[in-house]
């Protein structure tokens, strides 16, 4: 396609318009239950224009819901990084550890969040009312941990032997080798893992909220489906997408910073 001024702005807008047109056409022809773009906007207005309003437990501004979800994601994600990074280091450093645990990691990795959540709820059954929160945290952590684990392991294995030789010649202690050589050399890989993990954590939150009925974007989506207000499903989907996109951009900015070193 020929390039012109402002094409970075005009072309994406054009793309959005095409999709909006398709959407409108669908809702006007074969999918009668699909609300049209205009109807969606009308119905979503109170949620968007007063993004922090709180009218009831499941009737709040969209950014307020987003905030709830983000807080939960942040906790689960932090948990994933705290557990995942050391596991990654062990995997990268020790062949024995890899042989022992790699098969089980490969088996656990593809398990869907929807499958983990009930187990999480069962695990924290004794906490009563909080079981939903802990179950959700457990699910987010265990699902989003794997990219961090695997990327860290790859990064540790990719540390040039020369750097390690420098450490050996200087007789650096294990701790110093870790902090002065291994961690700085692995950081770019770790951040790639962190970014992928965050993406998964955000995917999982929606599923977790839908099943536990917690207030949040995902919970809101499921509730509005049950309440037959289909416009809000679309509002939630768009919100989830935009937030996910922004999170990914932010992480990749961070990643670039560490890559350049």
């Amino acid at each position, binding site marked *: 396609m020929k390039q012109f001024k402002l094409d970075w702005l005009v072309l994406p807008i054009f793309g959005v318009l095409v999709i909006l047109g398709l959407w409108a056409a669908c809702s006007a022809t074969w999918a009668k239950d699909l609300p049209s773009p205009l109807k969606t906007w009308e119905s979503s207005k109170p949620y968007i224009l007063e993004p922090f309003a709180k009218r009831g437990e499941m009737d709040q501004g969209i950014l307020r819901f987003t905030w709830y979800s983000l807080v939960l994601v942040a906790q689960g994600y932090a948990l994933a990084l705290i557990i995942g990074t050391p596991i990654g280091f062990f995997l990268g450093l020790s062949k024995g550890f890899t042989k022992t645990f790699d098969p089980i990691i490969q088996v656990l990795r593809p398990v869907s969040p929807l499958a983990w959540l009930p187990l999480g709820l069962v695990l924290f059954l004794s906490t009563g009312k909080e079981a939903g929160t802990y179950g959700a945290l457990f699910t987010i952590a265990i699902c989003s941990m794997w990219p961090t684990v695997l990327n860290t392991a790859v990064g540790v294995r990719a540390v040039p032997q020369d750097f390690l030789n420098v450490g050996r010649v*200087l007789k650096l202690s294990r701790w110093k080798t870790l902090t002065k050589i291994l961690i*700085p050399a692995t950081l770019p890989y770790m951040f790639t893992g962190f970014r992928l993990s965050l993406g998964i954590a955000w995917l999982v939150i929606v599923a977790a909220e839908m099943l536990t009925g917690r207030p949040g974007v995902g919970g809101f989506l499921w509730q509005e489906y049950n309440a037959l207000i289909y416009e809000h499903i679309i509002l939630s989907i768009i919100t989830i997408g935009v937030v996910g996109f922004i999170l990914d951009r932010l992480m990749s900015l961070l990643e670039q910073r560490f890559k350049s070193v």
Partner: protein
Amino acid sequence: MPLLEIKNVSKAFGGPPVLHAVNLSIERGEFVAIVGYSGSGKTTLISLVAGLIAPDSGTVKLNDVVVTGPGPDRGIVFQNYSLLPWLTVTENIALAVDQVFPNKSPGERAEVIARTIATVNLTPHAEKLPRQLSGGQRQRVSVARALAMDPQILLLDEPLSALDALTRATLQDEFERIWEKDKKTVVLITNDVDEALLLADRIIPLTPGPGAHLGDSVNVTLARPRDRKSLNHDPEFKRLRALVTNQLLNYGAKRRATVTKKLILPDLLPEDLDAPRTTRRRPLRPHEIKKEEVVAAS
């Protein structure tokens, strides 16, 4: 008593031995150059002295103590600099100094660092990261790091082979100057006979591997300081150079007679990097890779 003594050392990496029955003894203050073809086991030899790998048989002794592992008493300058890219010049050297002199005060350590950086003429670049430096400057940082540890012996593993000819000449002169100053014991691994003649007291050729061992050593009696321009016309220099070169060529002749090798080269076309990139480069699919066979035999 020699400072460094290598006795009957052999080393193999699974296949035929890389080094076989290597013997070497180096006196304190000596500058020894080991010259040999690439792939003849020079780096293996220096790694053994550094303690980075252990010999299969035989012993490496430093000060009559058997070397069992790496240590800061043997400063090593790696072929590819091995600077930590996330640390500045000062920090790279500080890592070594802090580790080797934990008993000195921070002020004294800073002084040692500044002094070694000055020795290699890098004071203006002290706060730069390695990627902001040229290849020659990086190698000087690497030398400074090794010097800062104040090792008993300095091991230089083809320190200049990755540099262009002009930078190499400058650094050779600088090495000579630094060595004149504190007369450290140095083992220089190189494939450049002129470099060895310019710097060393003694040159030892390494026969080509597999099963490499050290040939007869040649004493370099040229007066110091050696000036590269006048050396070119020095009859003694010419004689030594012919001697060492012939020795190496003889080894090479023996090798050529025994080795036949079939090389398979990928069919690559040089790419014009200045041409504007119109489409994204696509990785070659396996069936698109063409192979060309070149038979390199005697």
